[in-house]
């Protein structure tokens, strides 16, 4: 698929996305907005786990950092939410940098455990510091604009998602992306050809965390209520499941996974709160039998020869 073809397809899909909510009711619009949040989360987590092989359990925590920073600043300091979101993103980036640097010398399992510990610590602090965060009750925060409009929020989230995806796309198709994938494939071999592995991994952490913080900040101001559910292992699981089912290490995979699972969730909700169980079972089967997810399966059925010499998607 050439670059031009891709751009055309992307433009078509984007126009479709712009028009889509106009014909839908309030609740479907909400589902789409939530899906866009997860598109940002899953795609940025994919940068860590799919492209640089760092399975972080602290991604939801970064979203929580973005959400709570922005929310607290809005409530306590009267800062406008847009400024809060920027600051939240910056703080998430900083923490991502720190966490990435912390995990540098650690092997895969230790890295995962450390990010897990980080997320748990954050969760506990948020729940306990009631005076600042309102704990499990949730922090009520102002919206991104004065008048609440679902459609406007939709376009904001769509623009944000497109921004995040554009940045990720540029990164992955740049030299950095090649380095990322080299590190993921074989770290020792990557080192032997001059790849600055440590720098690459910390960079991935910083960027991915900033993106999660950004997404979390916007999401919090959309929901108007920020709860510890954002920096939770449950949200982290959803992000992981979406990426795994969609296809780790592919650009489209997390996007597909995010939309698919969110829409599926709504269908399952009719019968009861079983969606997590269903996601889990599907994710288990996919992870076990088709580790490259849906996009991996699709790629398997393409003959080897027609692949371009440099990966497009």
């Amino acid at each position, binding site marked *: 698929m050439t670059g031009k073809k891709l751009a055309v397809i992307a433009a078509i899909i984007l126009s479709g996305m712009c028009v889509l909510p106009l014909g839908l009711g309030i609740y479907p619009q909400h589902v789409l907005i939530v899906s866009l949040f997860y598109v940002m989360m899953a795609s940025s987590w994919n940068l860590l786990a799919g492209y640089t092989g760092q*399975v972080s359990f602290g991604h939801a925590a970064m979203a929580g950092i973005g959400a709570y920073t922005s929310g607290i600043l809005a409530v306590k300091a009267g800062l406008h939410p847009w400024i809060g979101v920027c600051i939240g993103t910056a703080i998430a980036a900083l923490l991502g940098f720190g966490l990435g640097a*912390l995990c540098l*010398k*650690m092997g*895969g399992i230790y890295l995962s455990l450390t990010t897990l510990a980080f997320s748990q610590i954050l969760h506990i602090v948020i729940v306990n510091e009631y005076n600042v965060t309102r704990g499990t009750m949730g922090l009520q925060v102002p919206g991104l604009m004065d008048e609440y409009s679902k459609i406007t929020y939709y376009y904001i989230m769509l623009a944000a998602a497109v921004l995040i995806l554009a940045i990720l796309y540029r990164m992955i198709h740049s030299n950095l992306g090649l380095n990322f994938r080299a590190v993921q494939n074989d770290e020792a071999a990557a080192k032997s050809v001059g790849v600055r592995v440590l720098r690459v991994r910390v960079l991935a952490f910083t960027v991915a965390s900033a993106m999660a913080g950004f997404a979390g900040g916007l999401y919090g101001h959309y929901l108007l209520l920020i709860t510890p559910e954002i920096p939770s292992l449950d949200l982290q699981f959803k992000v992981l499941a979406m990426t795994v089912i969609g296809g780790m290490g592919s650009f489209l995979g997390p996007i597909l996974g995010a939309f698919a699972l969110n829409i599926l969730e709504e269908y399952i909700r009719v019968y009861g709160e079983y969606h997590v169980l269903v996601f889990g079972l599907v994710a288990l089967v996919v992870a076990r039998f088709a580790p490259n997810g849906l996009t991996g399966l699709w790629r398997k059925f393409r003959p080897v020869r027609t692949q371009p010499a440099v990966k497009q998607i």
Partner: protein
Amino acid sequence: MFAISIMNGLVMGVIYALAALGVSLVVGIMNVVNFAHGELYILAGYFSYLFASALGVNFVLAMVIAVGLVFVLGLLIEYLLIRPTYGNDMYSLILTFILSIVLQNAYLLIFGPYPNKPPLWVSGATDVFDLFLYGNQRLAALAAGATVIAVIFVIIKKTWFGRIIRATSQDRDMAELNGVDTTRLNMLSFGLGCALAAAAGVILAPVFPVTPTAGVPVALTAFVVVVLGGMGSMWGCVVGGLTLGLVENLGAAFISTGYKNVFGFIILILVLLVRPAGLFGRAKI
């Protein structure tokens, strides 16, 4: 107050040590971290409740059956899920993480969100050193946990099976060359690891309520203990477990109950920063 915290710390410490031994065994032999460890711990609690309270089976028998069932489940999990991932740590981590969530939700569906409790073994309280009263069930738990740990130590250090386990976890290739069927050993070790979690589960189930998510903090703490004590060290699990149990309970009593679980995680990060090999672990090459 202080004394009771110490006692609680010891009881929890022994349980943590037991759970950690299960994790450590699997990590040592297969280099796999079983994220679903806590769910198997709690499953044993559910089983013992099911057999003892609901079906009226003798509580000792119920516990034995519970551990046995979880052991078999462990074998199945190894065969179906873990085996194909051998060599790829991240893959098994992701799979067991997903499994953990699936199990939690399955328990919610099957057993409901409300806590279940198998019957107490002993009731009443004892005067400890004439200083304070402490629940007999907890004392029994402490004794039972310590006994199981002692038995494990004997098996690993003294028996032929234990020797195979030690050899394989030190040098897998060498063990294979010497005729050890590492595939079967993997399966057995995984089952055994789950059985240890189950043992911890049945011991503690009468004391703490069995809910679908109650296994999560136990698993997380077991991981912390294994890192603190040092991967591959059994004494590390014991010392680490007791340390953590004491730190948590004293911390909860004197600093803050809400932050009880934070201590473990802070310790984890500190250990990984300062001395990743842990207290007794083998330093990496």
